[in-house]
């Protein structure tokens, strides 16, 4: 009996956190070692502060470039299929450049971690439902307050494979590149600077305002924050991409069906 007890007592005294500097035993909540005074993570080293400011600078720069490209799309003189493709491609290229320059922190998100078919199915189903509701609401508001019907499909109609074009440019491209831009790159930088909740909120906010539509802000903001949470929680970009794709695809399908 005493032989069984003795090893447990010595393990108990040897376990527990120890100061990396002098090896003294320390409590869980100690910020400085009681014996040698070494900082146990309380002091932020100057490298980290520099890194944080650099991360902020990079994400602001990225946001500004994307904002400039999106602002150009507002110009009346830059209307038409060619300009639309050019601007969309510029956004995509910018995103790819920034992701490539931060490849080591972005790469892990490109793997589909935590894959679960049931979860994916649920997310996509909810995305389709939400899209129907929001689309119905937007159409109602457009007709009652602005007395106009807008159709994205009509924009692509003059060209061959109009349906495929609509789906590619309105559902597929935004899904991939907006997720890469706002969830992979932006949240990656934000997590270096602040905690998870704030990172999701800030990236959701930037995502919402980038669409430059005051009316849609009320659903763009929660949508962006939700996608941010999912990316952070599941540690992958693909759930968000599928949700975003289903959401936009539903809007496309409704648009095309209505138009025909």
């Amino acid at each position, binding site marked *: 009996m005493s032989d069984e007890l003795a090893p447990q007592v010595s393990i108990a005294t040897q376990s527990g956190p120890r100061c990396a500097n002098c090896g003294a035993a320390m409590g869980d909540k100690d910020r400085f070692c009681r014996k040698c005074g070494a900082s146990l993570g309380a002091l932020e080293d100057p490298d980290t*502060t520099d890194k944080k400011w650099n991360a902020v600078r990079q994400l602001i720069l990225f946001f500004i470039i994307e904002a400039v490209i999106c602002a150009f799309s507002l110009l009346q003189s830059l209307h038409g299929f060619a300009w639309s493709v050019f601007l969309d491609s510029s956004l995509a290229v910018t995103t790819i450049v920034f992701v490539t320059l931060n490849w080591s922190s972005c790469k892990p998100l490109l793997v589909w971690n935590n894959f679960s078919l049931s979860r994916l199915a649920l997310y996509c189903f909810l995305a389709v439902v939400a899209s129907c509701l929001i689309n119905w609401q937007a159409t109602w508001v457009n007709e009652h307050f602005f007395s106009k019907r807008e159709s994205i499909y009509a924009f692509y109609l003059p060209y061959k494979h109009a349906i495929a074009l609509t789906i590619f440019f309105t559902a597929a491209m935004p899904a991939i590149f907006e997720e890469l831009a706002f969830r992979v790159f932006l949240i990656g930088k934000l997590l270096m600077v602040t905690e998870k909740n704030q990172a999701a909120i800030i990236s959701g906010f930037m995502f919402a305002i980038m669409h430059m539509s005051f009316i849609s802000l009320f659903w763009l903001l929660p949508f962006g924050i939700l996608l941010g949470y999912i990316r952070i929680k599941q540690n992958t970009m693909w759930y968000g991409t599928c949700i975003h794709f289903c959401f936009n695809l539903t809007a496309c399908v409704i648009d095309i069906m209505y138009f025909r």
Partner: protein
Amino acid sequence: MEELTPSSEATLVKCAACKCDAAVDDAFCTHCGYPFSGSKDEQNKFLSNRRLKKANLDEANKKVRQASNALFIVGVLTAAFGFMFYVMTVNPESAKSILIANLVLAVIYAALGVWCRVKPLAATISALSVFALITIINAIVSPISIISGMLLKVILIGVFITGIKSALKAEKLKKELNV
């Protein structure tokens, strides 16, 4: 029992720097690193260092406050501009939508101003983003508007950037001082 109570009282001392409880045989305070066993010189140096950090924290908080107030001011200005435009413009259709747009924007600025008091880093980053976006849109859609209020825009951008830097500094100092 009687032996335990006086000895448990005697084992605790108050740290001169952070006023937290510490065991009497500790060489350093586990909360702030104050050198109990150091020389008078070392202790004074630690205390003045701590005072300096507190002064820096106060200054950082002041700059964050400035950013928060700037957001409220910009909100009021945006709303005022919206009303002014609504009253002065000829076209009633566009006037209504511009008024609503400016009012929504004013609410966003005000909300960011409030958020800045709670989560300064998140709010200042968001504030800079939305202000930059609005300025960029105005600059590209009507380039002449770049000049109008340019001084104010430059000042505001400076205030927001300083706000972000100060928020980062304040977070770091708060962690170091354990406040």
